[in-house]
């Protein structure tokens, strides 16, 4: 596993402006920076209408962004915390309505958009909810182990263990010789 050097994120991208005061932040800018990963997180969490929920998440973010203090990592963690709460709300609402459409995960975001990695999404579907949440927050949302632990209310050691098991299962699922069932 690769570790990010100082000044770079885990993905190897250069770290953006680190410390920003609440007044400096622009909700639109935060949207442009984080919306793709939030949308992917919502898709991987099997939310029924991810674009709609994405809009709700960022409306909430725009309303309360001025209250958030800390660097960009803190903002990123907070945005994904909001998204996670929306996912939980959505799951509850779905279970109450009992109008579940448990079909396969759509492999396109919207008409005309670039198709998603359908195989990977299908493999994510095969993980346990805890494993899926950890691996998506860790790599799709690009959060550190400590931040994932804070968001999911787990210890770092537990997050590491879940991540390791999830990656092993995913590797097995996406490999060419993988069996249809995990």
């Amino acid at each position, binding site marked *: 596993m690769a570790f990010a050097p100082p000044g770079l994120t885990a993905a190897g991208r250069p770290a953006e402006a680190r410390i920003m005061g609440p007044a400096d932040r622009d909700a639109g800018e935060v949207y442009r920076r984080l919306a793709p990963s939030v949308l992917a997180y919502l898709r991987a969490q099997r939310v029924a209408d991810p674009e709609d929920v994405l809009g709700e998440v960022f409306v909430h973010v725009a309303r309360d962004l001025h209250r958030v203090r800390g660097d960009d990592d803190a903002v990123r963690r907070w945005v994904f915390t909001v998204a996670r709460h929306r996912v939980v709300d959505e799951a509850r609402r779905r279970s109450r309505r009992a109008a579940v459409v448990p079909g396969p995960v759509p492999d396109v975001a919207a008409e005309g958009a670039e198709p998603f990695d359908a195989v*990977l999404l299908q493999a994510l579907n095969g993980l346990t909810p805890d494993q899926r949440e950890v691996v998506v927050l860790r790599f799709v949302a690009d959060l550190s182990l400590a931040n994932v632990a804070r968001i999911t209310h787990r210890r770092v050691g537990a997050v590491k263990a879940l991540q390791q098991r999830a990656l092993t299962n995913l590797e097995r699922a996406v490999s060419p010789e993988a069996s249809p069932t995990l």
Partner: protein
Amino acid sequence: MDHDPLIDRLRDLGQRPVDPSTASAHLTAIAGVSRRRPGVGARAKIGAAFFAGLLVGGTGLASAGALPGSVQDAAHTTLSQVGVNVPDGHGPTRSTVGCPPDGVKYMNHGQYVRTHKNDPNAGASQCGKPVQAGAETPGVGEAPEPTEAPEAPEAPDQGKPANPGANGKGHGNGKAKGQDGQGQGEQGNATTPGPTEAPTVAPKATPVAPTSPSTTSTTKPPTTTSSSTTSTTTH
């Protein structure tokens, strides 16, 4: 086990751009929310309204004299500097006219009257009454003198039955009611037994006294007066 290719695929999943039309709709909604956020001006207005309410309420309580003593004092001092007159925390000044010189300070007239239950003239005394009340009413400025006048006539009677030796003048003072009584009222009031004779209001009683034994036997006060006069004569 090396998961790098898999991790790269996962990261790539998080970098797919949002559909431009969807992003545009979201950004419009976000801009609307950001504009509606209450700013510093709104908060300042709320704070100013709160303090204005506090000021008006506090001044109202101060002018009603309803604040606790020390706070009322502070309000009195502060507001008097801007020309607003509110009572201080000590209440109105109480009159000491007619109070017995025993050093006891009466909080109000009621306390004085309660303390001197046996004194029928205590109610008419000025002792413990607010000074402003008498001074402010027009035409009443002279009223205290007549009200004290009835006390003066008592003075002659004071010494008579109860405390003959205490005030030597008391016996023969029946004549010098009006003038001497004023000065003596303050002195002679010290003897509590004196006022107990008060029902015999001198100006009225004296004319009635001679006639009462023969004419009106129904009214009691004349009989008492007559008895007192007889006792005086026996002395």
